[in-house]
C-alpha cells in the first residue's frame, strides 16, 4: 500500500466540505425539521448552516497553519482533542450510516437487506479512510462531476409545483431553537478536517473555497425552502426528501419514479461523507495505536457490529441521535475547533499561516511541504 498523506489542496477541501456538509441534510433531516419547526424549518436550517460555516472558518484557520496531528501543543491536550474527535466521529458514523443504509434499502432494492448493505458499504469506507485524507480528497474530486451533473440535470428539468406561501407566516418562535437543539448531530461535520493540512501548491492557484462554502449554505437552506414550498405541512410525512424532490418524480406521467441519477449521485456523496468521518476515527486511533491497517479493520468491524446489533431500524437511530449524547457530540463539534485554534496559536509558535496564491516555492521545497502539480 502507498504512503498515507493528509495533505490536501484548498480546492479539494472545498469539494470535500461541500459534500460533507450537504449529504445528510437533504434526506431525513428536512422531515425531522419540518416536524419540529414546521413552516419555520428553513430558518432553522439557515441558522444551523451559519453556525456550521463559522465552524469551518475556524477549522480552516487551524489547518492553514498545521494539522492537529503535527501541531506542537502539549501532548496530553493533543491526545484529548484527538480522542474526542474520534469518539464524536464514531457516534456520527453510526447514526448517519443507518440513514444511508435505510436510503439504499428503500431506493435501490425492494426490501433490501440492511446487513448486506452494511457489508457492501464498510469495505469501501474502511479502504478510503485507511488510505488517508489525500485519497479521500482525490475521490471527492473524481465523483464531484457526476454529482454536479446530476444535480444540474435536476435543476434544469425540474417541473416545480409548489406554493411559496407554505412558508408564511415567518415567525421566529422557540420551535426553531428546539429543532436546532434536537437535531444538532446532523450539523458540525468538519472536525475530521483537523487531521488534514492544506497543501502549499508549487504554482499559485485560485482558491474557490469561499464560493463553495457560500454555495453549501445556499444549497442546504435552498433545499429546505423548496421542500417546504412543495410539501407544506405534508413535509412531516415525507421521509426521503432528496428522492422525492428528484426530477422524474415531478415530470413523469407514465414512467413513475425514475430517479436513478439522484439515487446514484447521493450514493457517491454518502460514501465520501461517511469515509470522511470514518477517517476521523481511523486517523485519531492510529495516533494512539500506531498500526493503521489494524485500526482501520477494527474500526470497520466495530462499526459493522454496532450497525448489525445496535441499530435495528431508523427509529432506534433517531432515538440515539436525539438522546442526551447529542450534547456531548455538539460540544465536541462546536467547541473543540475554537479550542484547537487557541491551542495552536498559543503553543505552536512554528506554525505560520500561508497564502496559496503567494508561494515561496523554493523555501517550501526545502521544508518538504510542497507538492507539485495542480490541485
Amino acid at each position, binding site marked *: *500500500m502507498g504512503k498515507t498523506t493528509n495533505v490536501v489542496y484548498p480546492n479539494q477541501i472545498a469539494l470535500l466540505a461541500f459534500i460533507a456538509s450537504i449529504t445528510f441534510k437533504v434526506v431525513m433531516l428536512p422531515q425531522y425539521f419540518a416536524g419540529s419547526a414546521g413552516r419555520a424549518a428553513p430558518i432553522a436550517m439557515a441558522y444551523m448552516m451559519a453556525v456550521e460555516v463559522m465552524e469551518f472558518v475556524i477549522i480552516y484557520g487551524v489547518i492553514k497553519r498545521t494539522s492537529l496531528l503535527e501541531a506542537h501543543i502539549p501532548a496530553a491536550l493533543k491526545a484529548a482533542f484527538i480522542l474526542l474527535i474520534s469518539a464524536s466521529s464514531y457516534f456520527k458514523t453510526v447514526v448517519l450510516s443507518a440513514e444511508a443504509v435505510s436510503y439504499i434499502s*428503500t*431506493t435501490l*432494492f*425492494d*426490501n*433490501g*437487506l440492511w446487513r*448486506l448493505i452494511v*457489508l*457492501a458499504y464498510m*469495505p469501501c469506507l474502511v*479502504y478510503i479512510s485507511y488510505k488517508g485524507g489525500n485519497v479521500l480528497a482525490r475521490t471527492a474530486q473524481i465523483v464531484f462531476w457526476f454529482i454536479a451533473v446530476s444535480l444540474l440535470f435536476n435543476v434544469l428539468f425540474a417541473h416545480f*409545483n409548489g*406554493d411559496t*406561501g*407554505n412558508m*408564511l*407566516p415567518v*415567525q421566529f418562535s422557540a420551535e426553531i431553537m428546539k429543532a436546532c437543539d434536537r437535531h444538532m448531530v446532523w450539523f458540525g461535520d468538519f472536525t475530521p478536517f483537523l487531521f488534514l493540512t492544506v497543501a502549499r501548491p508549487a504554482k499559485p492557484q485560485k482558491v474557490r473555497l469561499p464560493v463553495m462554502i457560500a454555495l453549501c449554505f445556499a444549497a442546504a437552506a435552498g433545499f429546505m425552502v423548496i421542500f417546504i414550498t*412543495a*410539501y*407544506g*405541512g*405534508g413535509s*412531516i*410525512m*415525507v*421521509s*426521503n426528501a432528496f*428522492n*422525492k424532490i428528484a426530477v422524474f*418524480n*415531478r415530470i*413523469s*406521467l*407514465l*414512467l*413513475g*419514479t425514475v430517479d436513478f441519477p439522484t439515487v446514484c449521485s447521493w450514493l457517491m456523496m454518502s460514501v465520501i461523507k461517511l469515509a470522511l468521518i470514518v477517517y476521523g476515527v481511523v486517523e485519531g486511533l492510529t495516533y494512539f495505536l500506531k498500526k493503521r491497517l489494524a485500526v482501520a479493520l477494527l474500526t470497520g468491524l466495530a462499526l459493522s457490529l454496532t450497525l448489525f446489533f445496535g441499530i435495528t431500524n431508523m427509529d432506534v437511530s433517531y432515538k440515539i441521535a436525539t438522546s442526551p449524547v447529542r450534547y456531548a457530540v455538539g460540544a465536541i463539534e462546536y467547541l473543540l475547533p475554537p479550542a484547537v485554534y487557541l491551542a495552536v496559536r498559543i503553543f505552536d509558535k512554528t506554525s505560520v499561516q500561508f497564502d496559496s496564491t503567494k508561494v515561496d516555492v523554493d523555501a517550501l521545497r526545502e521544508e518538504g511541504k510542497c507538492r507539485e502539480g495542480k490541485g
Partner: protein
Amino acid sequence: MQRRQRLKRLGGYKWLIIVVIAVVLIGFDLLADNASIVNRGIVVGLAIDSGGDLIELAAQVILPRSGGSASGGNDFMIFTSSGETMQDAVEKLSVSMGVKASLSHCTLVVLGGDLLRTKGDTVLKHLIRSPYFADNTLLVAASGKAKEVLSAKVPINDVASYHMQRMMQGVQREAGVNACTIKDYFANYYYIGGANYMPVAVVENCEYTPVGPNKESADGAQLLDLSRTLVLTREGYGFVLDYDASRGLSFVKGSLNDGTIIFVSDCSEERDVVILDSKCTLSVQSEDEVVAKVKVKVKRNDLPTAQDGMIVNALSERERERIRESVRGQILACFKEGQKQDIDIFHLGEHIYRKYGEEWRKNQNKLYIRNIAFDVNVELTVK
C-alpha cells in the same frame, strides 16, 4: 514466504482484495430480492375498496414479456387481493399475481366510497409513507366500488387508469376536473381546516360502434365522468360537490387551459366561450374577508356575423358581464356548499393565517368559516 512472493508477482494483496470485494458484491446482488423485469407485474392503477374488516385491492397490471415489444407487446390484466392492512394486501397482491407487484409506476389510485368513509385516512397515510408510490400519483374517489372504475371498458384506451390519468393530467387542464395527487392531498391536509378534494369517478354505459379489424366485438363501452368532486376533511368523507360547484373549485384551486363557459347571448341564446387560461389568487382583505381574484382568458367560439353590413366578432359588454357572472356564480356556489357543511374548501383560513399569524388563529375555532365573508372578482380577457 514463497506464497508471498508469488502473490507479489501477481500484483500483491491489492488485487486480491479487489477480487474478493468484487465477488462478495456480486454475491450480495444475488442474495438481495432483485426480481428481473419479466418477473414483475407493473401496476399502473390500483383500486382500493373496503370489504368489511379487510382492505381489498384490484390492480391493473402490465405483465412484461421477455423480449419487450418486439415479442408482441405486453398484457394488461386486473389482479385482486385482500388483507387486514394495506401492506398485507400489497404483499398478497404479489402472491395472487405470481410475480412481484411493482408499484413505482402506479399513476392512479382509485378509492372506493365505503373505504373513504371508514379507513380512508389510514390508507392515504400509507400511500405517502410507502417508498413505492410516487408523490405525483393521482387520487380518484369512486362513486361506488373502486374496482368497477378500474375495470371500466373505455373506448379510446383499453386501460381505464391511463384514460383517467390523461383526463386529469394530460396536456389540457379542463374546468371542473379537480385533479389531486398524493402530494397535493397531504399539503392540503395540513392546511388550516384541512379540507381536501379529489374527483369522483362515475362509470356510465355508452353507445359505441367499433371501427376497424375488431368491429365484430361490439361489447359496448363505458365512459368515465370526473366532473364532480368529493370534498374530504381530516375527519374523513365530507360531501360531493355538484357539477357547477366543482367547476367553481377548479377556477379557484386550479390553473386551467381548457373547458367552456356557457352564457346567454344578447339574442337570448345559449352560447359558450373556450377557456384559454385561468388563474386565481386569493387576496386577504381583513381578518374575516377574502376576495378571489380570477383572471380568465377566453376565446369566442362563434363564427363572425354580419350586422348592418359590418362583420361583428366581439362580445358585447352585457355578454362579458354574463360570462363573469357565470364564473363568479360557480365559485360562490362552491364556497356556499362548503360553508353550509362548515368546511373551508378554498383554504381561506390558511391564507388569513399566512397574513395575520397566530394572533388570528388563537381566536378561532373549527367553525371559523362561518364568519368569513367571501367575494369573487373576475377579470375577463377575450382573445
